[in-house]
């Protein structure tokens, strides 16, 4: 795996698709922007490795959660932007409620145990 210079914490397994779907909710983004957004929004705690990001994006394309279309980047370059599909939106909703339930349960245990 290629390493990047900013120290990054490991991504919890299986969380990346959910995070990608979440950052795409507000509009379409290209791959680099997705990585940046996740990094920034997590207060620079979570880093996304390219070796994980692009295979995950490909899987999500296959699942039909996102689509890709050509756009123009801030550096005026032709670039592919990923956009949430209705199916992806549905999936995100399901994932989030699932996630909430599980974290709630975990917190309950941590608090009372």
């Amino acid at each position, binding site marked *: 795996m*290629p390493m*990047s210079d900013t120290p990054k914490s490991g991504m919890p397994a299986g969380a990346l698709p959910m995070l990608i779907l979440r950052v795409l909710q507000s509009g379409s983004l290209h791959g680099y922007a997705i990585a940046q957004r996740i990094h920034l929004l997590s207060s620079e705690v979570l880093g996304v490795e390219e070796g994980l990001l692009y295979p995950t994006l490909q899987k999500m394309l296959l699942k039909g959660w996102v689509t890709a279309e050509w756009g123009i980047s801030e550096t005026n370059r032709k670039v592919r932007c990923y956009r949430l599909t209705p199916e992806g939106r549905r999936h995100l909703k399901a994932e989030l409620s699932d996630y909430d339930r599980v974290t709630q349960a975990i917190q309950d245990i941590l608090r009372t145990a």
Partner: protein
Amino acid sequence: MGELFRRIKYLINRRRMDAELESDLEFHREMAARAGRGNFGGTLRLREQSREAWGWTWLDRLAQDLSYTARTLVRSPGFTLTAVLVLAIGIGVNVAAFSLFNMVALVPLPVRDPASLVRLERRSPEIISGEMPYPTAMFYRDHAKTLSGVLTMMGARLSLEDDLEPAKTNFVSANFFRELGAVAAYGRLLDAERDEAGNAPPVVVLGHEFWVRRFGADPAIVGKVIHLNRKPVTVVGVEPYGFPSLDGQGAEIWLPITQQPYFVEGGKVLTDVSNGSVRVWGRLAGGVTARQAEQELLGLTNELRQQYPKDIWKNEYIRSDPGGHLHVMEPEMYQVAEMVGVLTLLILAVTCANLGGLQLARGVAREREMGIRLSLGASAVRIFRQLLTESLVLALIGSAAGMLLAWAVLKIVLAQTASPVWLSAAPDWRVLAFVVAMALIATLLFGFAPALQIARQRQRKTLARQLLVGAQIAASCLLLIVASLLVRASQHALYTNPGFGYERVVSIDPGLGQHGYTPAAAGEYLGQLRSRLEALPGVTVVSLVKLAPLGHSITREDTEINGQKASIYPNWVDERYFQAMEIPILMGRSFLPNEKNTAIVSEALARRQWPGENPLGKKYGENTVVGVAGNAHVNAMNDGDSLESYYSAQPADLPDMVVLVKSVGAPDGLTPIAKSIVGSLNPKLFPEISLLKSRFRKDMEQVELVASAVTLIGLVAVALAAVGILGLVSFSVSQRWKEIAIRTALGATKAQVLRAVLRQFVWPVALGIAAGAGIAAAASRVLRIALYGVSNLDSASYAAAILGLMAIVGLAALLPARRALRLDLATTLHYD
């Protein structure tokens, strides 16, 4: 669904998708570089990882393996061609055998709904009968709810006009053609309503081939009157071309069975409950299984027993077998099929052992290539897969070639034999599936072990090679022994005395029972016939026998004698039988005229029943043994272990008796004279007259055919083994070039060099021969019934097979080994 669809879209547009991915990654790298991160890493690797998400990586690898395979195979055309040829033979033999089995037992008859047709057979724990009385068949037809139809058939020979040869006729139930969905070529076929009515006029349907041959394919024959057994009958139609009859029972002439008494005067088939006369098939009603039908028929049989307590056997039941194929497979036929299957699989084993050896040898030659690939980072698994792919491609090409070979062979066989028109040599889906399975099995057999050895870089081990040689030799040895046993058997049957004389005997079967003769009338007729025949010049003996030698009907009792299985063939004969058939009476005497409660046993039966005792005067069943006759397997020539018992024919047997006429010289001239005599005695009878020697020849032709087929298979196996050994020896010579050159330079003699080269093959060959002979000795017991009295341990056959094999193997080893003696020392030692 959507995901699969998108996946396929990715596969189709993968070039564009890959370019898009590349652009993504390139952009990411640019941005990362702007942000001050330079060590992005190779985009190629990333791209590959991302592409794996599409799930088509295996396809890429397969394509790589395949293109590499194609290049490898094209680069060594000699090896490829040899391998494909060898495989084509090894697999072709199997495909041909399977195709034959397929035709006989698996391909459905091209008739209406073949799957619901069953053949019905009368059975009890002791008795099997292919034919049942017509009235019982009708009882089943009228009462069985699990059967929607019952078809009956009875073969007969009737004289057409004044033709010399009687016509092959089938009396069938009038629903026969309709049940099979046949449509007449001309006119109409039989019809249950019109032709089975009590006052229906006699009608006949002509067989298509017979119509062409005898009536010049004249459509105007429909409606004309012809004469069968001198009875006028109207032709109502012609059978369709290539009509697929049940169980291969075609006919020249078809008649409604209800009209049998009209053609065969005095015929009692329709009312006789005590004798089986018709073959019976049933059509299962919708949704009914064969088992349910059997259950119901068992109940009906028990009902029948109330009506005819004498005629229904103890524990009788009706057995059903699938009837919608060319032939109904009997258990004995499955045994034959299994035996053929084992022999052909042995060929495949030889083939694969052969190719496995070649593969290993090539593995050594490809050491450099494998070394380079391994050091470039290929895993052993990947190399293993690559080698297996090569084998698979070879096997697939070889199988395709084998299929073509089998197809050609079958086409010739079908053209040479009188096979049904609808049978086609073209492979169907079952044959195709079999071919693919063969290819996979062959791949595993000849590719798996060598690929494993090579991938682990162990191809130089000689043990694997020695095992392969041993296996080849063992299998070839087994095949050769079986072949030479069968050749010996056919030679033995042809050129040694079979224990009875057949050259100068004519058999006359007047068929009195079929014409309703009473014992008294039959006795009178036979007495007249005998005195007329005995008056002929050159006739020495006229005898009566119930089951004609080499005849159509055979009775066999399968019992146990002193704890061992035995097949006894009983016969009912008069006092002149042994003289007529030249069977010697070894002890005691022949029968006296009209003797009761006496028996004569064959020598072998006497020895097994009363070992070391005098059999004369012993009780055999209810009878007293009065004589011991020489062994004469007149009705089971092929089974050297069969036993015979004879009983004195009683007046009640007279309607079933066959007349044997023995002449001084060649009996050929007797046939027409006998024909005119029987014609003048009773013109309503149409006896079957034939020479025993021509029946004997016919039997022998079949034996020779089987023997030559097995010999051919054995020779193919040996040729394959020879090629394999040739290849292995020449390979091991070239592998040890340097060693040999050094030995020669140091003064080794030619004999020493040869010994050094060939030593590693001596043990495998010796062990292979021993194993092959051992398996043959153990397994050939089952062959005894086909060996015409030759022992299955016949030493001459074993010696011939083993010596032949050793000669071929020796030659195959020496030819390439001689090259070691002609080495150019200087060049060899300078090389490398």
